[in-house]
Structures are given as C-alpha cells and as structure tokens.
C-alpha cells in the first residue's frame, strides 16, 4: 500500500527554489532514508510531505487522498513528525511529554485513559526511556532527550513517521538501538522516512535511499545502487571507501573530492 506519494513537487521559500520536480513515494513497511548534503532540501521535503510547508507545484497524497483535503486532526492520527532539535520549551516530565503524542486521539477536556497510559509506557520502553519517565525533560542529556522525543512520536501510533535526524547526538549504542527500532516498526507495517547523515547506518538499515542534490533527486533505490563513488563525489563532494565487513556495508569518507571532477 502506498502511504505517501508526491508527484512533480516544487517548493519555494521566499522566492528561492528549494526543491524542483521531486517524485517521492513511501510504501507501508518501508524504511526510507533521505540523504544529501547540507542545504539540499531534506528538511524542506520532510516538512512539505507532512503539510507544514506549501508546495508551489505538484501533488501530495497520503493513503490515496490529497494531503490538502485531509483535516489536520485526521492527518495527525496517521502521521507523526519528529522535528530536528528536540525542543521542549517547558520542563514537563518525560511521561507527560510523551503523553502529548496522544493528543490527536483524545477529545478536548479528556484526561488520558488507561489505554493512553499503556501506549505511552510502551513507547517509553521501546526507546529505552521508561526508567526516567518522572524526570523533568530539561534534566536529561542530549541522547536521553532524543530518545524521549522519538517515544513521543511513537506514542501517536502513526502509520507514517517522518523523522528529521533522529540519531543526531546519540552515542553509537543508542544510534543502533533507534535504527533497529525503526526496522522493527517498519517490518510491522509502519512507513518511515528519516533524514540521516550517517551513510553507514543508512546503508545498513534502510530499505531505500533517496539522495537529494541541487534541488532534485539525484539517485533513488536500494543502498548499493545509490551509494556509489560517483554519486558521493557529485553530491557530497567526497571520495569514499565503500565496502562490506561480515556482510555489513560501510562507507568511510576518505578525502574531499577535487572540484574539477564536475
């Protein structure tokens, strides 16, 4: 089932074209990584896909329905967005922060039901954050906070999860945990799009990669097809060593590519 589809998408911000002629689709059970150099429009694409930014051109559909015609409250039940930066403006407890993920499912004036509490508890557990559920958010380390924010997004129980750099700032152990969690969620049917800078992690865990460069999709497909020396040199301007170790792919950037290669 196609969860999310964008055809011929163009996005301009302040008269500046950020994305042009983008085709994108996300199937149920798929884990897709959005990769590309800084400023290539990854975050913009993610925000446009969840309706935060208007597209000047093109059509986005979610579950077969045009995105613009889905009421916000409806969309909020099927799509979760995990913004970059993990901001929490008030120092509420971890548990109540994750409970915010249940807002789309609650009626106004309704206090959290036992069902809500159960889901929050599971989300916390899944992100290895249950042990500090009563701590105020601003007492957490960067990594702990990132996990709590992910738990908040999972508490929505979405069909689609759009995550903007969810592993930034996490130690290797927790990075692996988050990616494994993503894999698990996608195999149970969730469609996940994640912006990620760690190419090794992307290659190892994601079903499909979308490489953005110069306002367009430079390459798209299974990791082996996208992460080629040529693509990396062109988009990231790097020379990289691509290899496999015990069946696991890895990418090591070795040097900055010479500009005249273009």
């Amino acid at each position, binding site marked *: 089932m196609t969860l999310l589809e964008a055809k011929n998408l163009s996005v301009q911000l302040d008269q500046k074209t950020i994305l042009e002629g983008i085709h994108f689709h996300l199937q149920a059970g798929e884990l897709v990584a959005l990769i590309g150099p800084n400023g290539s429009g990854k975050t913009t694409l993610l925000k446009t896909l969840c309706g935060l930014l208007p597209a000047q051109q093109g059509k986005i559909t979610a579950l077969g329905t045009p995105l613009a015609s889905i009421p916000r409250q*409806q969309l909020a039940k099927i799509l979760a967005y995990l913004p970059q930066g993990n901001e929490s403006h008030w120092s509420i407890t971890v*548990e*109540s922060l994750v409970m915010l993920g249940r807002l789309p499912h609650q009626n106004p004036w309704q206090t959290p039901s036992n069902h809500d509490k159960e889901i929050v508890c599971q989300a916390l557990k899944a992100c290895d954050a249950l042990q500090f559920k009563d701590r105020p958010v601003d007492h957490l380390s960067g990594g702990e906070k990132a996990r709590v924010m992910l738990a908040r997004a999972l508490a929505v129980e979405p069909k689609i999860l759009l995550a903007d750099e969810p592993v930034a700032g996490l130690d290797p152990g927790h990075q692996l945990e988050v990616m494994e969690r993503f894999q698990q969620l996608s195999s149970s049917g969730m469609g996940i799009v994640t912006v990620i800078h760690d190419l090794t992690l992307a290659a190892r865990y994601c079903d499909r990669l979308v490489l953005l460069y110069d306002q367009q999709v430079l390459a798209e497909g299974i990791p082996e097809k996208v992460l080629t020396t040529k693509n990396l040199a062109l988009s990231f301007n790097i020379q990289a060593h691509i290899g496999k170790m015990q069946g696991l792919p890895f990418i090591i950037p070795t040097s900055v590519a010479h500009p005249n290669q273009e």
Partner: protein
Amino acid sequence: MPLKSPLFSIEHCSLFLVLLLLTILTFAGSLIVGASSVGWKDLLSVFVGQESEMAHLILLEIRLPRALLGLMVGFTLGLGGAVLQGYLRNPLAEPGLIGVSGAASFGAVITIYTGAAGLFALALPLGSILTALFAVFLVQLLAGKNGGSLRLILAGIAVTSFASALTSLALNMAPNPFVSLEIMFWLMGSLADRSFEHVWLVMPFMIIGWALLFKLGRSLDALTLGEDAAQTLGFNLKHIRHLMIIGVALSVGAATSVSGSIGFVGLVVPHLLRRWVGHKPSALLLASGLGGAILLLTADIAVRLLTTGTELKLGVLTSLIGAPFFLFLIVKTKRNTMS
C-alpha cells in the same frame, strides 16, 4: 526543583484546594475591610438577614462589587498571563503584550478627556472595551496571515506604544488640571467605589474570554514541542492565535476597563505557580487564574489597610511589589541558564 512531579496526583489536588481556600479567604477579607468599621460581624448578620441598613449598603453595594471585581480582574490577569506565556513559550510574557491593556487604557482616557465619562456610569468602561477590541482587530491585521508569534509581538508592541503616545497626548492637551489629574489617577489602576453595574458590564466579556482561553489548554501543551510539532499533532496555529487574541482582548480588555492598568500580576503569578503544576501549560491555566485572584484581592485589601486617608492606588502597589520580583526572576533565569 523536585525531581518527582507527576501530573495527575494528590499533589495537584492539594494545590488547587489550597488555592481555592485562599481565594475564598481573600474574597471574604475583601468584604470585611474598608474605611468604615463594618466588619465580619456585620457580614455574618447579612447571612441571617438582620443587618442594619447601612451595613447592608456598605457590604452589598460597595464592598461586594469591589471584591467580585478583584476576583474577576485578578483571575483574568493570572489566566491571561499563563496563556500568553504558554503561547509564546516565554516565561517573561504578560497579558498586555498584544496591545490590549494599552488600548483599553487609552479608550478610558479618551472618555475622561472628552467628558463622556461623566455622562453615565458605564461610559468609561464601554469606551475602553470598544477601543481594546478595535486595537485587537488592528493587531490581527498587522500580525499577518501565517500565525507566527514574532510578528504578533511586534504588532502588539507597536499598538501599545501608539496607544501610550496617544494617552500622553491626551494628558498633554488636557483642557484643565482637573482632567489630567483624573486621567493620571485612573491610569494608576484602582477598584475603589466600583458598583454592580461595572460587574454586570464586564462579566459577559470576561466569561466568554475565559472560555476561549481555557479552550486553548491542549494547544498550549502541544506548543511545548514547538510550532511545527504542534501543527503535526493536529493543531491549527492560526486558529490558536485567533482564539488567544480574542480571548485576551475580551477578558483583559474588560478587566482594564474597570480597574485601569494593573501591572505584574499576569507576569508574576504564572511564573510562581508553574513548578507546582509540573510546568504543564494546560494545568497552569486554572491555577494561575486563582493565583491572580488571590494576589489582586490581597493587594486590594492591603491598599485599604495600609493607607487610611487617600487610598494608595492598586496598580501602584502591584508594581511596587512586582518590579523587584521581576528583577529577581531575571537574575534567577540568568543563573539557571548559566549553570
């Protein structure tokens, strides 16, 4: 800061019980304090229906409307402050920020300046509320379409400065010193000698305003995660802003129209109570409203007790206490961010 502050627990219940009790106490206190010796005994006799005619008049026609207005104005300021701070995600925001108080003050000053205030009892508050509503319309226009909060603050500041400039102009052009004196006294904020007509006038505005503001609770919680995340949780920023502005305009505009400008209540109260509700914006609304009522009723009792002759103005007292407290907050905030 206590490490453990669960959300829906006995601790919360007890906070609201304490606040409710203090509200009732300060309300009763406001009824038994005044220039005359009418006190708690007379208050009790009102309940049995055996009071003297004078006590009846003083308690029910002078002190009761004053106490009610203290309660309502304080509640409005506390609630408005909590909403503004939650909406802007800034602990230093206050209800006057979007230009409502400044405009309401100016509207009142104009009625005094033109002499319209002397025509009938409600001319002043009516003029004031209408100006506040007009100002909010203006702020909405200036703030633009796409729900951002920065432009809203800038628009609010612009309207406030313009209103205060016009207020100074009215003072400057006052035809005689008596007009300027009355304007100055009004600007200092007071609840003295308000009657039930004032209560009936502002009550509908305030109640509608409160309802709109309380409706915002969930949205404010969602905004904890930032505007983007709140939108993807199903909240419409534009809708939130409309509700917030109209709710603040109705309630705070009405409050300013009867009491004059009373500073710092809306700033200090949410700040004080936030930690007791686990920093959750929606839980802060009612607590802050009650806190505001308690603070304003206490201050209004204090102005009557502290000065026997010419009454100290309520707004002056709240600012006298509020300003040093504000400084203290700034110093504390700075220290927290540094550590």
